């Protein structure tokens, strides 16, 4: 793929600590890509390497098929996990400064600053020092700093942490809008429902290497263990039938009477259906998609 970002075999050690151990994945053009993993899994390290803030011991980062260089990186937008702006600098001046550091002329920088301050609702605060702003507005300015130069790639480290629900909606909107314009968006988050809702694809990281990666839809429906929800009504008693599945190969009940069955190796859905019909009236029969949280937990256990 040449349209997006590719990490190829990234390794990074800090003394005896292995932060990244051969990390590889791709983020396609216009894709919203979620980066998930426990604290210390190496997400921040990987992002810093993409931005050139850190150097990888081994491995390379490609952008549109070419190894990234300073010129390409200047067209990236980055929000570090450690948020920060110049506290005493005026909001407008600060955004113009960042746009210019990213290679914008002063005219373009002023334009971008006006546009993003308007879009993120901090326009009236242009003349204020950053330290005088509320935390919520500081977050908005921080986001504007990542967007002000119309980046071709967005890398956001925990962008949703500390946001109120309105902030979450605003940020989600901006990310989806950017991706609709073809900008790949890579972001990390611990809020898995959010990742599930926004992302087309995810990478799950554990101790520096991938444990799962791919389109969210695929991850949710595949896997070695599937969940099947079957509700069978015993026509005699009118109650939910139970224990009709006992003896079926590879089938295990996942909950008490909710009808959730865990299908392991060698299980056959058709057999399950036959048995269910024999037990009573089948009111519900369907593969249950796993939530990202379940995938995550499973990947961590595995």
């Amino acid at each position, binding site marked *: 793929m040449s349209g997006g970002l590719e990490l190829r075999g990234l390794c990074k050690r800090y*003394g005896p600590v292995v932060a990244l151990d051969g990390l590889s994945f791709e983020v396609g053009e216009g894709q919203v890509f979620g980066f998930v993993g426990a604290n210390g899994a190496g997400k921040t390290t990987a992002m810093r390497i993409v931005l050139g*803030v850190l150097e990888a011991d081994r491995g390379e980062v490609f952008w549109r098929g070419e190894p990234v260089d300073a010129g390409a990186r200047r067209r990236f937008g*980055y929000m570090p996990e450690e948020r920060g702006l*110049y506290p005493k600098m005026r909001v407008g001046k600060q955004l113009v*400064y960042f746009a210019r550091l990213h290679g914008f002329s002063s005219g373009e920088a002023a334009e971008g600053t006006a546009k993003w301050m308007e879009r993120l609702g901090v326009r009236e605060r242009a003349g204020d020092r950053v330290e005088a702003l509320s935390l919520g507005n500081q977050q908005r300015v921080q986001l504007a700093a990542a967007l002000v130069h119309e980046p071709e790639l967005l890398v956001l480290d925990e962008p949703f942490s500390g946001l109120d629900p309105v902030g979450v909606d605003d940020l989600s909107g901006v990310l989806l809008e950017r991706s609709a314009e073809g900008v790949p968006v890579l972001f990390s988050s611990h809020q898995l429902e959010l990742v599930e809702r926004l992302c087309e694809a995810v990478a799950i990281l554990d101790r520096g290497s991938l444990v799962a990666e791919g389109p969210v839809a695929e991850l949710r429906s595949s896997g070695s263990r599937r969940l099947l929800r079957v509700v069978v009504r015993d026509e005699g008693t009118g109650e939910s039938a139970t224990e009709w599945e006992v003896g079926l190969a590879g089938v295990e009940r996942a909950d008490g009477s909710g009808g959730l069955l865990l299908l392991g190796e060698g299980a056959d859905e058709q057999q399950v259906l036959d048995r269910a019909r024999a037990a009573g009236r089948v009111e519900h029969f369907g593969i249950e998609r796993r939530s990202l949280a379940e995938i995550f937990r499973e990947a961590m256990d595995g």
Partner: protein
Amino acid sequence: MRGVRLIAVREMTERLRDRGFILLTVFTLLLALGGGVLGALAGGVGPQEYEVAVVGEETGPLAALVEEQAPAFDAEVSFEPLSDAAAAERAVEGGEVDAAVVDGERILVDGLVEGNLEALLQSSAQDLAAAETLQEAGVPPGEVEASLEPDPLAVEDVGAPEASEPGASLVALGGLVLLFLTIYLYGYWIANGVVEEKSSRVVEIVLSTVRPWQLLAGKIIGIGLLGLGQLVLLGSLGLAAALVAGFELPPATFGAAGAILLWFILGFAFYSCLFAVAGSLVSKQEDVQYTQIPLMVLIFGGYGVSFSQLGDLGSVTAQALSFVPPFTPMLMLLRMGFGEAAAWEVALATLLMILATAGLVLLAARIYAGSVLRFGSRVSLGEVWRSLRQDRAKEAERREE
């Protein structure tokens, strides 16, 4: 280079808007202005002005001669003719005039006359009397004048030849204090600026657009230019104030000012790298005061050493130390001011200083890059050093592959 320029410009403009900076500048400017004016006043500048009452026609030729000789006595005399001795006495007593000359014979004063007025009057009277005597003896008028003003005796200085012009040493001493204060002040700003970026965490965004050495260079150049501008403004205003007040500047002033600028630029470049390292090792503003202690010791040490060598700037110690980069700026400035430094020594010291600074910039940029993204507790230099060596090893490993 664009990044360096943007960073330097931000450093300057943000500080120029800072109220603390503006107040400090105005305050020091006022101090310099006041210093210039005070110095001029205390120095008893310009010719002293006197008013002298004259009585009687005989006093006319004397007054003419006094006027002629006044510049030699650093005086300016104006005359007020009065009708008689009694009036002159009243005027002297009342303080309306500084002295009175009566009939070319008597000088009336009230107590002691300040300055050279009495000597001027006496000398003029003597010359007048001598001229009259010569004229009476038949000496032609042209020769009278010549005989009264013989060529002055030739003066030969048999002491060791002094390279320095008078006054240069004084300017150099002032320059030493200025150099010490400004290098420390602006150096501290560098350390503070580095910590400000680190403590606010903004440094990571900046470093996603430029290399660490560019950020470092931009910061040093920006603050350095600001310091230089302040120094030049301060110096020229002080000098202008002195000139306006009528103070005669020693001819060496401008050479000395050039030397101060040279050693400020070199000294600041050298120390600012060290201050940047001191700043990059900590994450909180209040911790800078600990990591900058070694620098403070170095700068105060250089200042102390320079003063201790003041009595004997030609000594081997002073000579040797003036080639050791941390001490070079202050010691060389002194040695130049006192005319103890040969041209080749200045050239060599400058070269050594530039080389040392270049090496230091590279080293500081590496340490800075290694420590500026480590947030949290204070980073020890040893830690940074170890991780730098590790990076080296990894690089070598990569190259072998």
